[in-house]
């Protein structure tokens, strides 16, 4: 048993930390968020240069051959800066789909593009009606010669406005919520019939509604098995959960530290508010929630490559922990800050918003409680 990070992982962490320190202090982050583009493309090139985009890919494709633990390290540090650039959509989700499901040709073509920073990808797996059920799909893909024709509406695709390609889930057969009949496609953003409606999110990211109107996709761009795509989708989303858990502990760490610091400096009744026992206990509970979340994040990232049932349970358990702890920590961080906590001026409120939205990504507490329960039967 060993919970130590390798030397490479420590270097990786230091590198991301330095990037965040140099480029992503709170003020700079808000400038990026408020800009027209909403992200900084130069940073993406910098990510490529630093090798961040190469971290989890096999050496055959020019990657660094890292594991989920490497991704965890990167995501935790990005979380501390509330970095908006689409690392999770592109590298973890887009890259994950390709890694686990792409044909050799597709992998050989697209993974090097991701690594170079030339392909930015978002995952369009959710639909307006589907809540968190990955199989609930009304988007259809109909075979037409050597191609598929896609029609449908994908919801809240994070990073959508910035990307070159979408990974799209669609139904090639079966009923709306059948496990079979799900297929996965890599679709160019510029494809005829594909339109997006772009918007900011409440936590400073950008997303799109993606509308597919007779979009033709060559069968070479099918990722994984036709009709048998659901296990792939589930695996990649579980990896997304492992990654977003790491982001979440980065966010939590900032919330906990900022709150402790604020309570030391803010004086009322002639003393620092941190001297009030009721607030001390609250902050201790925040800290306990954080520590438990760190443990669950390690757990899920260690287990994410294990066999399916084990992986699913680990992912759902982690997501429940992150959701509950995130709510507790976020709400109490704001409370201890008093009025300052609900202003846009301090970063604590922005971390609180991000934390809240993390629960709505990849399934919330209730969804994963149910999934866990079903797996425990």
């Amino acid at each position, binding site marked *: 048993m060993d919970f130590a990070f390798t030397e490479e992982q420590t270097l990786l962490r230091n590198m991301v930390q330095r990037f965040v320190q140099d480029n992503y202090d709170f003020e700079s982050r808000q400038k990026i968020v408020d800009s027209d583009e909403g992200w900084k493309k130069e940073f993406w090139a910098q990510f490529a240069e630093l090798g961040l985009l190469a971290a989890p890919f096999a050496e055959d494709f020019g990657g660094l051959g890292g594991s989920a633990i490497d991704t965890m390290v990167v995501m935790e540090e990005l979380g501390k800066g509330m970095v908006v650039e689409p690392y999770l959509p592109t590298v973890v989700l887009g890259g994950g789909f390709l890694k686990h499901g792409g044909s050799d040709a597709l992998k050989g073509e697209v993974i090097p593009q991701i690594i170079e920073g030339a392909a930015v990808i978002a995952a369009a797996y959710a639909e307006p009606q589907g*809540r*968190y059920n990955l199989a609930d799909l009304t988007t259809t893909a109909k075979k037409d010669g050597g191609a598929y024709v896609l029609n449908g509406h994908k919801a809240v695709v994070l990073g959508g406005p910035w990307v070159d390609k979408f990974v799209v889930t669609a139904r090639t057969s079966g009923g709306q919520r059948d496990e079979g009949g799900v297929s996965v496609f890599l679709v160019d953003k510029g494809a005829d019939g594909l339109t997006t409606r772009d918007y900011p999110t*409440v936590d400073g990211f950008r997303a799109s509604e993606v509308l597919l109107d007779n979009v033709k996709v060559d069968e070479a761009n099918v990722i994984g098995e036709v009709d048998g795509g659901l296990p792939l989708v589930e695996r990649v989303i579980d990896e997304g959960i492992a990654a977003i858990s790491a982001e979440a502990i980065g966010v939590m760490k900032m919330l906990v530290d900022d709150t402790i610091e604020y309570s030391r400096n803010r004086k*009322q009744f002639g003393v620092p508010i941190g001297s009030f026992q009721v607030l001390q206990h609250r902050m201790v509970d925040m800290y306990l929630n954080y520590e438990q979340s760190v443990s669950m994040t390690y757990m899920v990232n260690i287990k994410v490559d294990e066999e399916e049932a084990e992986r699913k349970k680990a992912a759902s358990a982690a997501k429940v922990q992150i959701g509950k702890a995130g709510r507790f920590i976020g709400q109490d961080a704001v409370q201890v800050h008093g*009025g300052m906590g609900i*202003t*846009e001026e301090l970063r604590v409120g922005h971390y609180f918003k991000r934390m*809240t*939205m993390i629960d709505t990504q990849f399934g919330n507490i209730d969804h994963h409680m*149910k999934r866990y329960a079903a797996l425990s039967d």
Partner: protein
Amino acid sequence: MDLAFKDDDLAFQKEVRDYIGAHLDDEMKRLGAQSKNGYIDKDGIVRWHKALAAKGWVAPHWPKEYGGPGWTPAQKYIFDLECARAGTPTLSPMGLRMVAPVIMAFGTDEQKQKHLPPILSGDTWWCQGYSEPGSGSDLASLQMRAEDKGDHYLCNGTKIWTTHAQWADWMFCLVRTDPDAPKKQEGISFILIDMKTPGIEVKPIITLDGPADDQQEINEVFFDDVKVPKENRIGEENKGWTYAKYLLEFERGNTYAPSIKRGIRKLRQIASAEQDGQGGALIGDPDFRAKIDDLEIQATALEFTELRIFAELAGGQNPGAKSSILKTRGSEMQQRLSELLVEAIGTYGQPFVQDTFVKSNEPRPGPDYAAPIAPAYFNYRKTSIYAGSNEIQRNIMAKLVLGL
């Protein structure tokens, strides 16, 4: 002990329902459903205020001599219920509920004549100048200085978190008139400031819900050599703390349950409209339902607590330290409600719409009802912070109710 309404109560209920039905316009309803912070725009609030004032119903808790309707506790409760049922706009409380009782209790005849009628009619908008950057929970430490200049005070300092200062004609304000008083509570006076006086600057504070221009809930207000005539002081010089505390008990002594129950009805509607991803509606999910039911049971407990407390009060009285019970539990339930709404809308909690009041030709991402929900959840963290934080309320109850 019984709950049954008498025949005349039932007749009254019908009268209230009919009047609300005839005067609550569609625009007020639309904005109400789209509000991120519990308020609609100034125009709509004033329109509703005037509609109630025309009928003599805008100030249920005022004594009759000042224009209150003279209702029984049952009638007040019925009125609250009917307002909540219909979803009427939240009125601005600063004039009607806060400064008016203080003016009635401690103001001069001139002050009463000058200020109470326009508060009642809805012609003046008030804001509350209590908190300062360095003085929140420890309000008595406030620093804003009012120097005695013979016929007027010269005021310098900063107020913060001032709700709707940008719309206000008047501010009631706590200022330090005696910086050398032995106790910090003793050197404070309660004055009324005309917001048009030179030297006042109002700066918006942007809250987490991302308000549209001019719709911000709170502000910082700067005072630079602002002259306030001495006749604008309420009561005695340096006795302002007594009046300030009197006011706070009114500020906290609201009913919460009727509006929470209305919110729960809205939550049920939304959960019926939301799909569960398994072919049914979210409202059919037993886990989610249990959370709604749990909140509704808590709200019923609060409702009956409110009924018990208010039944004992005659018009113009306030519930004293017991108001802390209502404020604490009421705010916690408001927050829980806002949390469940976020859960209900799932992924569509994410899109941000800045001005939810604007009718746009572009369809919104997600259902229309979703846009204000996450912002409102962020905004409603305020309820356990303002009007005395819930920690402070618990300190008050420990001391004054439990005698610890």
